[in-house]
């Protein structure tokens, strides 16, 4: 048995009883794009920054705004309004860039404003109803919060796909 297996076993022993006692809680960060409230798992977020200047890039779909410099790294910037086909809006003091790790790469998304950190029991998350348009498979599920708010939980990994961005040669 390798060291890794032992560690895994110990971890399992530590976490399992807890899981049994309390129901599984999912931690999310909520934000608004257009009229709707969305959320992504807190662990997929690298950081949240105020808007900074970006550089346009040719030959990409309109929701790819361009690239910008985050402490010496060049990151793509995705406009979620355009991605979700919501009418465009100006950047204001509430606008934020959320930097998330997708397939090992940092990508930033423009959102209208942050709402709150959300803790929600897993059982309160339901699969997306058929009425939702979910062709890209970007919706993980729909969560109902205690105060009655409904949030759409996004599948971070499916938010952008290379084959949709860079045209085939």
């Amino acid at each position, binding site marked *: 048995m390798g060291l890794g297996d032992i560690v895994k076993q110990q971890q399992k022993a530590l976490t399992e009883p807890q899981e049994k006692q309390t129901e599984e809680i999912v931690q999310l960060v909520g934000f608004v794009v257009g009229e709707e409230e969305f959320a992504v798992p807190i662990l997929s977020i690298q950081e949240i920054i105020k808007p900074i*200047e*970006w*550089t*346009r*890039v*040719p*030959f*990409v779909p309109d929701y*790819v705004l*361009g*690239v*910008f*410099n985050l402490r*010496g*790294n*060049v*990151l*793509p910037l995705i406009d979620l309004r355009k991605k979700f086909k919501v009418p465009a809006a100006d950047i204001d003091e509430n606008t934020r860039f959320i930097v998330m790790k*997708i*397939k*090992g*790469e*940092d*990508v930033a998304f423009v959102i209208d404003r942050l709402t709150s950190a959300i803790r929600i029991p897993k059982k309160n998350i339901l699969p997306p109803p058929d009425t939702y348009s979910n062709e890209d498979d970007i919706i993980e599920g729909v969560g109902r919060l205690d105060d009655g708010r409904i949030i759409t939980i996004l599948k971070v990994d499916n938010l*952008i796909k*290379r084959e949709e*961005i*860079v*045209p085939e*040669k």
Partner: protein
Amino acid sequence: MDDMMELLEDFLVEAFEMIEEMDQDLIELENNPDDLDLVNKIFRVAHTIKGSGSFLNFDKLTRLTHHMEAVLDKARKGELRITPEIMDVILESVDAMKAILEYIRDNGNDEAPEVDIEPIVKKLDAIVNGEGVGSSSEEKEEKKESKKIGNLNLDEITVDNIDDIDVSQLSPEELDAVLERLVEDINTPPEEEEKEEKKEEEEKKEEKEEKKEVTPADKKEVAKAAETKPVSKEEAKQKVKKQLINAKEQTIRVDVKRLDQLMNLIGELVLAKNRLIKIYNDVEERYEGEKFLEELNQVVSSISIVTTDLQIAVMKIRMLPIGKVFNKFPRLVRDLARELGKKVRLIIEGEDTELDKSIIEEIGDPLVHMIRNAIDHGIEPPEERKAKGKPEEGTIWLRAYNEGNMIVIEIKDDGRGIDPEAIKKKAIEKGIITPQEAENMSDKEAFMLIFKPGFSTAEKVTSVSGRGVGMDVVKTNIEKLNGIIEVDSVPGKGTTFKLKIPLTLAIIQALLVASQEDLFAVPLSNVIETVRIVEEDIYTIEGKSVLKLRDEVLPLVNMADVFEIEKILEPEKYLYVVILGLGATKIGLIVDRFIGQEEIVIKSLGEFLKGLPGIAGATIRGDGRVTLIVDVASLMKLAKETHNKKLVTDSLKEAKKKKEKPEDYVVMIVDDSAMDRKIMRQALEPLGVQIVEAKDGIEALNLLKQNDVDAMLIDIEMPRMDGYTLAQEIRKYNKFRKLPLIAVTSRATKADRVRGVEVGMNEYITKPYTKEYLQNVVRRNLGL
């Protein structure tokens, strides 16, 4: 087991390095068969490989090298003269040795079933025996054994070649023996060496016995006793030892990955440096004349110099002499010339010129192609040359030298040259160009046709070249390195190919240009020149836009069309054109502005965006903004498509909006006082222009972005954002660079006016003013 692998790896690296050198030496040897130094050198290579090979149990390799050694041994003793026939056999055996070594590298053993060494061994033996001295050579071999320590042949060691010996591999006894030998070498005048050799040998043996018994204390006495001698053996030994150690510590092998990491860090440093310079410039503007500026300037300059030096130093670590590639050509030329029955001399110059390792790896194949071509197509057969009054032996020059940030590799022959008319004819036959195109073509352009895919000039197809793929491959390879190819040829006299390749790939010099409002960095190595033209310089030939530049006709495209950038700037009287060159192609690219030259660090756009057409990556500028770097090869392809479907003259019209009547013009009034706005409005209404009003700088800036404004009247003192700041902000946008800004204010001191000019105001009107005066100023600025 790992030790063994490491040993094997070291052996292979060393062996391949030696063989590379040996190839060169062998060719030289053929020309100077009496050069004993060369024979000795080659002998040592065979000998070393044999020694290490037998240690690693490579029997086949050992057997082969053993027989090679026998032949070379005779040659170095002057008992055998190297004729071309013998050289053929030796070269054959070197090839076999290479093949076996390659097999070892790939498979870890020397079975190498496809290499049959027996015929070669027989031939080598025949050479040795052919002279009828088989027995004596064996005797000598035995004698030599007595002077050998481990793998070393003591006879071979002199002070001059101690560098060839890897001291770290020697046992203490071996090292001792080597040192003894060196001391002898130092103390013995060369002429006497031979006479004294035997005597000394005996002495040495005695001394050795003696030495084993001396204790350190005794040693001192021995040294003292020996003081009468010019140099005592101990001292000399110490000296040589030091020399040896020093010599060995001068090089280390480093993993390329570590160098890449270092290069990345330096890249970051270069970015920080650029940023620092930018900040310094800003500060200088603001605090002109302040004392601390001088100090800051010194710090910035010294950091800038050190960073550049550091970058060059690391770049140099990655550099290898191009001789590494050139070395294999003497052999190639010799073999080819013999095969084709031609006489060819190869002259190599500048083999010390250094290039980045990654480029060295890529450059070999194209050069092989070009040299093959030169021998096959360029150099004529001896009879033909004689008939033309040329020397029978053709010459090929292979030359490398630095030119700015580029390295130039020149391949020149004195053969039959290229006939531009023949090339054109052929190209028309093959449907590569039309007869009309051929007519407009200069000779230089015609030469470039040989790089077109599917073009082959050789009348007959030989095994050497003329398969119609060669030059195309050359072009592709050179383009990969962002290089440029130039061809020059005089029929009957010869041809010169010039390859210009950037020195390194990670940090590059770039020309920054603006197309509309977007900035791009174009690798300077591909910028042939920049020119300023007027629209009348653009011609349309067969529905395509071209630029006539001296004797060349270049395809012309607008960069904004290539990258599908929306046109918002009105074209000006002058157009700025970047002449881009890649491989054998040149195009003219219209941009809207030249920003300048800058050193940039190439960064990837990441997994999601990399590989975008026309874009090689991005760089971070001094102001922290990202600028895209143009991928010249890919841009050329895009430009070709654009060139086929869009006329530059049409494209220039797109941005021109017709403004004829005064109602087509919009003037914005920015003032916090409603009263003042009203006065201005009343003054301007008679002109018939449209009027927009803003209460302060921020509102004005927002309105400006939404409306198409042709001139602005700006008050200086306003809440939130004053007039100076507003003007400054507006001038940051490329598209508002030429927007007339007219300050209308009661602040009338000279300092105020100067400040106005500094921030980019075009005119300065002081209140109160007359209606007519304001109208005149506005009219003049609108061009009404």
